[in-house]
């Protein structure tokens, strides 16, 4: 019984820590994005509050909480209120299976540095990320506004199409690691990161997660100069904030998945594992912000063309070749 309670307490502590770290990381990513984009456009970005504008996220949160929480007339009230929470929650849930450091030995017990090392961790991640669509779509539909509905339809089509290429790009990684567990996948990259072993799968996965995170150049669902704000047009205050933060949490999660699956996870020379992991995740996040500063938005037909006619066939071919090579090496 005491073992059960100890395990439960450990899991709760880990969940609390992850919750705090991810939320503050998401809040500061917003600031980092504004600063970096500002620099790229020869501006300073927010720099009034505190040194280098470091208190800006706190001010943003206070502003969002004190704003009026507006529910449009003629909307589906309950679903409208419920949708933003669903988006933020599904984004947070994925982090349960991400290992950020090798197991630590404390008090003679081995403490895995992951909330729950599922033997189907990768499947869990794919399942949860496909649930993320619901928040966006239900929010957009329940708003009862043309722009929101258009945004919802766009994000549905986009997420559905790119999920396929994302899943297919991951199978070669599973084939080399011989396991769905993310810890085993990181362990299998001790010598070489999967980036070197599966460069094509890496590229396909990178493009797919850019589309999954609904960021430029794939930000059709919220293209502000076509459909106002897309699915979150009608939202205000903290409910809009939840959609917004959910997007940045998603960025952290997808960055961590890219790190775990292709960049070798916590492996790296000299520095402690957790520092390597954070550096890699932050680098991926920086690259996404960089892409937003430099790339134009695709058209929707180009997006669908890229997804269905380029990425999915390429991913299938890559899978076939990888499987054949692995089989030949084995035999």
């Amino acid at each position: 019984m005491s073992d059960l309670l100890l395990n439960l307490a450990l899991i709760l502590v880990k969940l609390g820590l992850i919750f705090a770290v991810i939320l503050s990381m998401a809040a500061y990513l917003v600031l980092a994005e504004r600063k970096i984009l500002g620099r790229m456009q020869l501006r300073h970005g927010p720099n009034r509050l505190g040194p280098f504008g470091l208190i800006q996220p706190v001010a943003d949160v206070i502003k969002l909480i004190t704003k009026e929480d507006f529910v449009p007339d003629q909307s589906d009230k309950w679903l409208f209120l419920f949708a933003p929470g669903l988006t933020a929650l599904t984004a947070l849930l994925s982090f349960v299976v991400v290992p950020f450091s090798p197991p630590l030995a404390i008090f003679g017990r081995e403490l895995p540095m992951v909330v729950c090392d599922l033997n189907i961790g990768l499947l869990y991640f794919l399942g949860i990320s496909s649930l993320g669509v619901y928040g966006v779509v239900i929010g957009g539909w329940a708003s009862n506004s043309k722009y929101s509905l258009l945004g919802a339809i766009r994000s549905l089509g986009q997420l559905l199409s790119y999920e396929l290429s994302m899943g297919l790009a991951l199978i070669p990684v599973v084939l080399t690691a011989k396991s769905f567990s993310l810890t085993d996948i990181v362990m299998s990259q001790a010598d070489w990161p999967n980036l070197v072993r599966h460069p094509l799968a890496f590229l396909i996965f990178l493009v797919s997660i850019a589309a999954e995170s609904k960021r430029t150049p794939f930000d059709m669902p919220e293209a502000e100069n076509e459909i106002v704000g897309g699915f979150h047009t009608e939202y205000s205050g903290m409910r809009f904030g939840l959609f917004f933060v959910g997007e940045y949490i998603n960025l952290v999660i997808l960055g961590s998945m890219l790190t775990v699956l292709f960049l070798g996870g916590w492996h790296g020379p000299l520095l402690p594992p957790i520092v390597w992991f954070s550096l890699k995740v932050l680098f991926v996040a920086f690259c996404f912000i960089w892409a937003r500063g430099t790339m134009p938005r695709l058209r929707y037909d180009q997006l669908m063309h890229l997804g269905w006619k380029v990425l999915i066939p390429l991913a299938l071919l890559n899978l076939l070749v990888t499987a054949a090579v692995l089989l030949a090496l084995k035999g």
Partner: protein
Amino acid sequence: MASILFYILGFVMLAATLLCVTCRNPVHAVIYLVKGFFALALMFYLLGAPLIAAWEVIVYVGAIMVLFLFIIMVLELAPREQPQEPGWQRWVPGLLLAASIMICTLLIIFQDPSAASHGPNHFVGPREFGEALFGKYALAVEVVSFQLLFAAVGAYYLGRYQPRRRNEEDQT
């Protein structure tokens, strides 16, 4: 304990499915059906098939119901253009179903604490599942996948046929 949970989940699933077919609002119906699938996934887990439970969520909730939603969205049915249930009927059943699924999940975790970290020993892992699927039952799997291919080609043919006719009508 497990059998009591099984019957509770069975009831939740039946209730959710019943609400799904009686609900006039298509998006609400989809949400009820999603809850039914979650209850079904938990039932598979209780029966010792966590992998099937995961597939249930990934395939049915994550892909097929999303496609259903896509169709509903494309039909552009705004929330108020279709009949609404009065007041409490709109949120009480959904909330009750969600709450009972969550309580069952918590009970399963507490009843079987190792499930949270390693998964019990008698459960079938992905490796054994894959070996059974592509070894012992390979022929059945191939037959089923051919069936799906036929269905996909048939759907493609039907989908292609309609717009061409409409274009001809436009021209005349």
